[in-house]
């Protein structure tokens, strides 16, 4: 049997669809309406504050570390558009701070100098998160950072109840750095090696770092990835 026939044979007799298209459409509508409401309210607030002559209050909303602009006293001198919100400024500032912290991570991660964190509002049911990714010397790497509480320390996703991929080794560590899962096939795989360090920190910062090596490419060690995942500079709540 040729390759195409084998592929077609492999997908014969699929089970019933595990999701409902109408449900997805409804989720999409809800998400779209929520985004419009958020921008609409934020825009109204921004315009109302300018109209009321509260330019000083607007500059005070800038996150710490941003230089305060000394503009003219009259409200009409302020150039505030409805879409420039305090929330979006704070997100940008956090992304910049996380990006700056990349320089302090282990050099064995080979993070390019132009790597940059971007904010993702989250879709498909995922939480919002900050992400940076890069590919160097046949190694793809990602760092995702989100605001999440630590899981129950009595639960162990590596334990017998886990239905994770059996080709991966898994460790579960609890210490002053929080709860950390390390999942890796690097010791046994021959064609593609991957290690993920999933760190849930006491300050509600969840850092997940994944490195995947294609072919013979060497991925960073578990120690290097763990050190990065616990780096203070990657906290969402410094």
């Amino acid at each position, binding site marked *: 049997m040729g*390759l195409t026939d*084998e592929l077609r044979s492999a997908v014969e*007799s699929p089970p019933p669809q595990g999701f409902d298209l109408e449900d997805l459409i409804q989720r999409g509508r809800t998400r779209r309406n929520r985004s419009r409401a958020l921008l609409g309210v934020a825009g109204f607030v921004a315009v109302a504050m300018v109209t009321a002559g509260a330019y000083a209050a607007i500059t005070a909303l800038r996150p710490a570390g941003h230089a305060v602009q000394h503009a003219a006293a009259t409200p009409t001198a302020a150039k505030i558009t409805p879409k420039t919100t305090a929330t979006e400024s704070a997100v940008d500032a956090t992304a910049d701070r996380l990006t700056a912290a990349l320089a302090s991570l282990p050099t064995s991660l080979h993070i390019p100098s132009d790597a940059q964190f971007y904010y993702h509002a989250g*879709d*498909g049911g995922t939480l919002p998160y900050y992400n940076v990714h890069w590919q160097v010397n046949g190694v793809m790497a990602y760092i995702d950072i989100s605001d999440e509480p630590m899981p129950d320390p009595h639960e162990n*996703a590596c334990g017998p109840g886990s239905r994770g991929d059996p080709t991966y080794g898994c460790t579960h560590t609890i210490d002053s750095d929080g709860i950390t*899962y390390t*999942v890796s096939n690097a010791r046994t795989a021959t064609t593609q090696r*991957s290690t993920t360090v999933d760190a849930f920190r006491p300050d509600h910062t969840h850092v997940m770092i994944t490195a995947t090596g294609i072919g013979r490419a060497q991925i960073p060690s578990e120690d290097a990835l763990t050190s990065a995942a616990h780096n203070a500079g990657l906290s969402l709540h410094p």
Partner: protein
Amino acid sequence: MDDAGFRDYIGSRLDRLRRTAFLMCGDWHTADDVVSTAVLKVYQDWRRISRMEHLDAYVRRAVVNAWLDERRRPWRRERSVPELPPRAHPADDHSVHDRIAILEHLDALPARRRAVIVLRFYCDLSVEETAQVLDCSPGTVKSQTARALDTLRASMVDVPDLVSEG
């Protein structure tokens, strides 16, 4: 928002997208997760993309990207279900063995090469169409195809000879 247009477009392609996702993911639960993520993203972008010339490529790219995102969380793939969903038709032992074999061969491929094989030999896309989905050059698709076929050939899979691709 043209929900009817979206419903018609996606509804007619959903089965094919699920099967494509299954060949990349290796299991139907993850395939459904990947496809539903991609479909939700396409819905959110629908007003902007519905008149695109290469809409099929866009949708396939959404599926591939959702799968690549999912792969970054290998241990999150675990799911608990009370019972396995029923199969449409009973399968004989020989066909089950063949299906498992090709899925294992695919699983041994790096992610991008697996995607190239599925897009070219299941979806029957050309080199250029595959490059569009994977957002890479046709040359990259050709080289990834050749390396993937070499790996599959070494595993005794009957693969085509693509000498003409150079």
